[in-house]
């Protein structure tokens, strides 16, 4: 059980309003990801839910119960911090058992639960080590272990993978997804990593300056961004925006085409441009192109696209894949 509801939650730090008023419902069992630019209030929102900060006004309900004034520990949530926040002086075992000990659980029960968590996270061999003797990924797992043992009604993650290196990040990402599949517990996850958001979320919440811009499934956001901000934010490399005549021709203020949605040709196409940089990854080629009208765009070609810098290419936006925005940046 772990449905979380925010009702007109506001948060100010002294004078500055960080969250001007958020309404959000997170269903039980959902994997919700908060994304948004740095400083937009993702962590703050998460900490409000956790109870580590007081809301300035508004209400937070967990499973319908108003927890607004409650202490963090009584909300039945577990949190995984970006820095892992492991207790460096305790063994892995004691780290994981700590919340149970605090809850006054009998020793035997504690051990059983720790063993189970260790099992789930493959931490068995490390139980007697100190966090300092673990690799980054293992530490992250301990942090998650500490969260699981409590059998919380929801997990809160604040950029849990951002301190890991690329390869490990991929692994942990998959592990957390699998964990979610197994436990079916609500998870609220903050990240600024595109790929994490897209691959893990049931529902993505896009924040800007403390406001929710759009809530939806990853593919919904990818395919139907409600505005230019979301469109530019979701997808990597970012969507190319073209304004001026090109857009006007399609009856929009700005049109957007994703790098992967360009049809590239040496012979014909809608627009012509000159290659300024070509990045050959082997699996893909990213072409940085300056169009005739002066716009810079990035186009992706799968596999290898043999090209020399300065070469001229023709590009066409794939039909049905062109996003249109009005003056306010809203999708039309």
């Amino acid at each position, binding site marked *: 059980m772990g449905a979380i509801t925010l009702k007109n939650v506001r948060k100010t730090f002294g004078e500055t309003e960080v969250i001007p008023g958020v309404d959000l419902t997170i269903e039980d069992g959902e994997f919700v990801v908060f994304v948004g630019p740095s400083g937009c209030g993702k962590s703050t929102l998460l900490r409000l839910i956790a*109870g*580590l*900060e*007081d809301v300035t006004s508004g209400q937070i309900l967990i499973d319908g119960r108003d927890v607004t004034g409650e*202490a963090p520990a009584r909300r039945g949530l577990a949190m995984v911090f970006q820095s892992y926040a492991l207790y460096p002086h305790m063994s892995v075992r004691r780290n994981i058992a700590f919340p149970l000990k605090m809850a006054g659980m009998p020793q035997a029960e504690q051990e059983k639960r720790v063993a189970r968590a260790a099992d789930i996270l493959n931490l068995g061999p490390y139980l007697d080590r100190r966090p300092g003797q673990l690799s980054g990924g293992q530490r992250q797992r301990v942090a998650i272990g500490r969260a699981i043992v409590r059998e919380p009604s929801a997990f809160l993650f604040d950029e849990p993978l951002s301190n890991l290196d690329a390869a490990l990040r991929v692994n942990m990402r998959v592990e957390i997804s699998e964990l979610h599949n197994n436990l079916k517990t609500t998870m609220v996850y903050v990240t600024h990593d595109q790929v994490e958001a897209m691959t893990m979320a049931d529902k993505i919440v896009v924040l800007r300056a403390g406001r929710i811009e759009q809530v939806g499934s990853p593919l919904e956001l990818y395919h139907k961004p409600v505005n230019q901000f979301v469109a530019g934010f979701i997808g990597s490399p970012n969507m190319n925006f073209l304004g001026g005549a090109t857009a006007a021709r399609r009856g929009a203020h700005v049109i957007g085409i994703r790098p992967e949605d360009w049809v590239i040709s040496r012979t014909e196409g809608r627009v012509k441009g000159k290659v300024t940089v070509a990045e050959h990854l082997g699996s893909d080629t990213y072409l940085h192109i300056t169009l005739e009208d002066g716009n810079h765009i990035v186009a992706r070609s799968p596999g290898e696209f043999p090209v020399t810098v300065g070469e001229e290419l023709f590009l066409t936006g794939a039909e049905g894949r062109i996003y249109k925005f009005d003056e306010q940046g809203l999708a039309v």
Partner: protein
Amino acid sequence: MATLHQRSLARLMVAPSVVLLFLWMIVPLGMTLWFSFQRYNLLMPGMEEFTGLGNYRYFLSDPGFWISLQNTLIMVGGILAITVIGGIAIAILIDQPIFGQGYVRILVIAPFFVMPTVSALVWKNMFMNPVNGLLGQVSRAFGAQPVDWLSQYPLFSIIVIVSWQWLPFATLIFLTSLQSLDSEQVEAAEMDGAGIWARFTNLTLPHMGRAITVVILIETIFLLSVFAEILVTTNGGPGYQTTTLTYLVYTQALLQFDVGGASAGGIIAVILANIVAFFLMRMIGKTLD
């Protein structure tokens, strides 16, 4: 990063210290202030009476007052200069790759553990005494007239003794500071062609700025109340040459048992110390975050 609950808890937790220190400050200070307006000599009980600012006038007109102020400044300044400069030099020296670094550190640290009284006694009798002191014997061995440190250079001698005690403290703080200097920064400077001296002035010294402020603050706090060393070695003399403000108050309080005068002196010392504190605090306040 706090909820209301946390914040009120926090207040609760600071409260005991604040209350204790407040009492510790206000009770004696209040009594002192009260006494400072009284004519009150312990040796003449039953003669107490209100004298207004009489005690202050008396204390401020003491022929030793201005000299003692000057002595205090010279002493504190001198010790600070010696310990800061010496401390930096020794810290850098110890930080070099040398054999037996740990032992060197142990030796250097040792004076910090010595009681002020003991160190004053040892220095006075066994080193600075011109007849039996080691320094005198050494200079005689070289055929020179032994120097009578405590009467010819009394203030300097005190500075030496107290510096000896505080040098380890400064050295230790500088050493930790030095070791926290980012080695990549040093390497970058090296790549940039900075020589040893340029690295010292452009990197090491600015890096240690914080440590230097800390050392100055802490030492000043303790040095303003240096007392045992003077009492044991020179008794504030000859003349007024080593009479510091603290010592002057001492002579009022425990030689004359003039509680009124001593209290006035105490209040004046508190005011002066707080002026010093004000500047120090501003200095350190900046480095605190």
